[in-house]
């Protein structure tokens, strides 16, 4: 998790939003807490929307399926 946090901070520092999509999704997938997972999924979705990433629709559907979008 510490490594993921470091990679997230690096990606933020580089404003690498494409990388942030994958990293936040990874954070969601490794979280055992529903609220925390949805927090990370939300960030993945927002950055996917921002850059026009092909994962945006799937991330939205995943959140919607959890009653979060």
């Amino acid at each position, binding site marked *: 998790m510490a490594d993921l946090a470091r990679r997230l901070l690096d990606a933020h520092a580089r404003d690498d939003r494409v990388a942030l999509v994958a990293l936040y999704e990874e954070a969601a997938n490794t979280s055992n807490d*529903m*609220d*925390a*997972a*949805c*927090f990370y*999924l*939300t*960030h993945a*979705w*927002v950055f*996917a*929307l*921002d*850059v*026009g*990433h092909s994962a*945006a629709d799937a991330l939205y559907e995943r*959140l919607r399926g959890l009653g*979060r*979008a």
Partner: protein
Amino acid sequence: MAKDIELDALDAVRRPVETANGLPNAHYTDPAMFRTEAQALLMSTWAGLAVTADVPEPGDAVPMDFLGMPLLLIRDKDGDVRVFQNICRHRGMVLVTEPRKIEGAIRCPYHSWCYSTKGKLVSTPHVGGPGHNTHEAIKKDDLGLVEVPSHVWREVVFINVDGTAPPFEEVHADLLERWKEHDVPLYHGGADSTFMLDVGTNWKLAVENYCESYHLPWVHPGLNSYSRLEDHYNIEVPGQYSGQGTLVYRQLRGVNEEVFPDFPGLSEKWDEGGEYVALYPNVLLGVQRDHAFAIILEPMAHDRTREHIHLFYATPQTDEGMRAKNATLWKTVFEEDIGVCEGMQKGRSAPGFDGGRFSPVMDSPTHCFHDWVAGRLQAHG
């Protein structure tokens, strides 16, 4: 009492050109009058904001300031040009601060609310708490970006800020009919065919100067050799536009006598004809057989105007050297006008100046504009 004097002065402006005075000094020197005129003349009409070439590709977005308002010019994903208020519906944060390509959504830099390029609100992250992206009180369909009514004509993007103007085609039906032969595709010449001039003058003085040909032999002596005063005629449609036409337009020629391609389907009238019209309030247009131009006057303050000049051609590709030569020619002409516009602005600080008089023969297009200004101000109250 001051209001009575002002209304009397506007009545004097609206007299027949033979006896009329020009607008009083305050219309050029008073910041409060500038704000009043912004409402009466620029926000309630179809004002020029930009050209479509400012956003050539889908997703292109340019933040703009118009009379202090933050606006966003954008070409949406389907290719339509739109204008929005450049602020988030959440906390009013400015959304886009530099020209850029919107790859996906317009994301607010504050709390990351996201909008499509058509203005639809698509994401409200954490609005219902961490990881909860909806809330019953926040209805996305009601919270899209505020769109400013816009209309594209001759590749100029016109906006009606307060939404009260009748449709553009209705307001400007006369000029659309007059120039219907010129209703053909226009191709912006690109970066070498656009330039900007900052002028220390009220925007109306730029209109007034553009309207009439009276000044041509004195201010533009270079034109006089082939474009004499008697070769020009006045154009006046009260309440809409005014300007001048020439009967002796000569095409620019290159070193090998090459010329720009003509716009297709023009009648003989345009072989040597050219028309130059101020479309009220703030767009100056020129049409000729082989190129056209648009000048968008950006009112910056009561005594400052930024002129955005754009040249258009009949074909997507034209000779680079010819384009550069043509841009230089027009830039020289428009720069020659700066001195008189700034001189008239300075002159408006002379106490007691009555607004001046008009040549009944040569200045009637300028009076036509003054009459429009005065009429709208009277109606504005």
